[in-house]
């Protein structure tokens, strides 16, 4: 498993811009496409360029954004978390039921919901780190279990959410929804953690090579478990946000988030084999996906074609994506 490095690209030390562009081709591409799409849509549709719609796009990006942040940690450390969508659903439904049927204060319910997410993530992390289970398949298994739990909680719309929780979605600070501002801060915080904290650097190191990381004295298992826990918390937060948006616990909520978040990371230039990629690209991909689904709605593309279109985009994106053969 030790990293063999052969034939490095000789790059002139001076030419930093070029070097950066070459390394971050996926990032440049994703923002280019997003910008082009936004410009074209703005010209074609006055509704799209409306400030209210733009803030709506940003607000729509929050659910996927939250899940992608968690997924990013897991993928950078060399794993995959397939359970995020169902974790969001279980927490969303659970919180909805608890808010309706117990007298607990909403804030406490929400905190408990986030804790439940952490617990789910911790379990995934333990399975992967301590038992050597293959991440994709084992989280697929927990996804199945969580799906069953969601059905157990409710198979129909459930729970009336109090105003105070709906406010999470609706509250505004100036013209911007508070949630968008909080989300932006979360992205910033994640960016800082990945770039400048010891845990962030360890995440990259473990994803790059667990054996080298171990040799360097890093606690590989702890890093792995922590990444899955973060992912679980993020998924729980996404579930709670979805609940605040719809006002009622929807048993079909959070459908497909696991794959959308993996795809967001992949087309944002993050290596699915771990250890390489940036948050900036993943953010671009999240925005792109939000813009596309907004345009679907604006142009009233039939729901039956939306999935197909999205699917084709995903296939093209992963086909363009080139796996690094280092690993």
């Amino acid at each position, binding site marked *: 498993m*030790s*990293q*063999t*490095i*052969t*034939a*490095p*690209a*000789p*790059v002139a*030390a001076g030419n930093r811009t070029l*070097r950066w562009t070459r390394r971050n081709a996926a990032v440049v591409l994703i923002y280019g496409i997003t910008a082009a799409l936004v410009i074209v849509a703005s010209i074609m549709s006055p509704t799209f360029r409306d400030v209210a719609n733009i803030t709506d796009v940003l607000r729509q990006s929050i659910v996927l954004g939250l899940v992608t942040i968690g997924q990013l940690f897991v993928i950078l450390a060399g794993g995959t978390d397939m359970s995020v969508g169902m974790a969001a659903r279980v927490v969303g439904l659970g919180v909805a039921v608890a808010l309706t049927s117990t007298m607990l204060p909403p804030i406490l319910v929400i905190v408990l919901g986030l804790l439940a997410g952490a617990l789910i993530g911790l379990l995934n992390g333990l399975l992967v780190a301590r038992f050597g289970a293959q991440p994709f398949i084992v989280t697929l298994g927990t996804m199945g279990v969580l799906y069953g739990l969601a059905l157990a909680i409710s198979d129909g719309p459930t729970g009336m959410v109090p105003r105070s929780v709906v406010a999470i979605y609706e509250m505004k600070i100036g013209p911007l929804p508070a949630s968008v501002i909080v989300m932006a801060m979360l992205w910033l915080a994640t960016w*800082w*953690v990945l770039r*400048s*904290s*010891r845990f962030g*650097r*360890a995440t*990259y*190191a473990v994803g*790059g*090579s667990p*054996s*080298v*990381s171990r*040799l*360097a*004295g*890093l606690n590989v298992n702890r890093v792995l478990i922590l990444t899955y826990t973060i992912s679980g918390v993020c998924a729980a937060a996404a579930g709670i946000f979805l609940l605040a948006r719809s006002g009622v616990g929807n048993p079909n909520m959070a459908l497909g988030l696991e794959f959308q978040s993996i795809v967001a990371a992949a087309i944002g230039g993050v290596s699915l084999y771990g*250890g*390489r990629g940036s948050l900036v690209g993943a953010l671009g991909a999240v925005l792109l996906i939000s813009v596309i689904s907004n345009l679907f709605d604006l142009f009233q593309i039939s729901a039956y074609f939306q999935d197909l279109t999205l699917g084709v985009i995903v296939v093209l994106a992963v086909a363009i994506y080139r796996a690094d053969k*280092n690993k």
Partner: protein
Amino acid sequence: MSAPLLRLNGVKKAFAGVPALKGVRFELAAGEVHALAGENGAGKSTFIKIISGAYTPDAGTIEVLGDSFDTLSPKQARELGIAVVYQEFNLLPELSVAENMFLGRLPGGRLSGYSARRAEASAAALLERLGSHLEPSRLVSELTVAEQQLVEIGKALALDAKVIIMDEPSTVLANDELGRLHDVVNRLRAEGRGVIYISHRLDEVLGLADRVTIFKDGEHVLTAPTGEMTHDSLIRNMIGRDLVDFFPDRTATAGADLLRVDGLSVPEKIFDVSLTVHSGEIVGVAGLGGSGKTTLARALVGLEPRSAGSVELAGSPAPRTPRSCARAGLVMVPENRKAHGIFAGHSIAFNLTLAALDRLKSLMLISRKKERELIERSMAELDVRPKAPALDIAKLSGGNQQKVVLARWLSGNPRVIVLDEPTRGVDVGAKSELYTLVESLTEAGAGILISSSDVTELLGMCDRILVFHEGRLVDEFDRADATEESVIRAATIAPRAEPAGKTPRG
């Protein structure tokens, strides 16, 4: 001289009953560069792994800075200040130079994040001591191999390692980068650190090191100041004297052309290579690691893209895929047995028959009877031990694994067999058996091309020896005029045939 940094005595290690080290001793003083020399299989890498804690010795003592140990754990070794710079770097390409150097101990508070500035300043200071101005914020993936090597050495300094082991550091470098490496080693010596320097380049051993220790077949041969040694005495001690009857007599005579290579090139790896192998002939290819001899072996059977030139097999153009090459009778036994040769976790039987399935069919299906016959015949012919076809091949010794990998092809009666490092990791007994086997193949009319960094092997086995240097064929020797020294000189020292350009080192 004060107490040595490191002293090993009577160190023994055997693998599955095959001894790799038979009680060697070694000593390293502060401020000393101590070269460790010996042929492949002499026990050098086992020895390093014992010092670095990767292996547990069967017997002997390890003394570090006066403290005596029976064995070291990797962590212990690290804490005692022992660092190894392997040929394959242990670096994380997506992290910066500074992060690689300080990974696991990044400076900074728990909540404040690590201080990139402090890490980079410390890294810069360490690199400065190595005489380098490498920017510590650069990503390792952007660096040249020489720069990456420097980062590895920097990692050792970051641990304040007293003992730095460098495993063939020069093989990955181009000639003009060697000077800088030697400068770095000299600086380490000046700081009072001890360097164990492993190299096949004899002039390097003589020019750089203070003392040299030679191992042979797991035994200590000598330790002497380099001033008292010459190229000849080094080589003589590395080979030993009693090698004459180790190799079978060559009885086959060269016949018609079997393999004719003309102007073969592989982009960025080998250039304009022409050679011929006749029926009944064994041709050797000598060269250092990275000289292109492995690429040649791979290109011949279609595992590397050919950009120019032609390959003819018995007069007709050779196919370009491994499968059609095998069908035409041109086969290769790869250098890296574990990664490219065997299917670990599968039985000997599975490994043995995989290339011969076409011949095992009756009524479209693989016949168990024919399969069993082939397995029994092959295992008997090559004397694979233990004779248990259902055994996981990974449990066999290197020599027996190699027999299986070779036997896989032999049932198809190949015309040309390319062997890349055929006896690497193979014990002496099995070596001799493999040599006899190869010799018998030529008697049956096959042509053999052996690519090897073990010059003794080439001298013992081959009718002709071709020498590779930096991707080109630079020299050719007949069996009669080849000597160990002349071949090594051609492979290591500035080539005769190459046009001037690189400065020869003296």
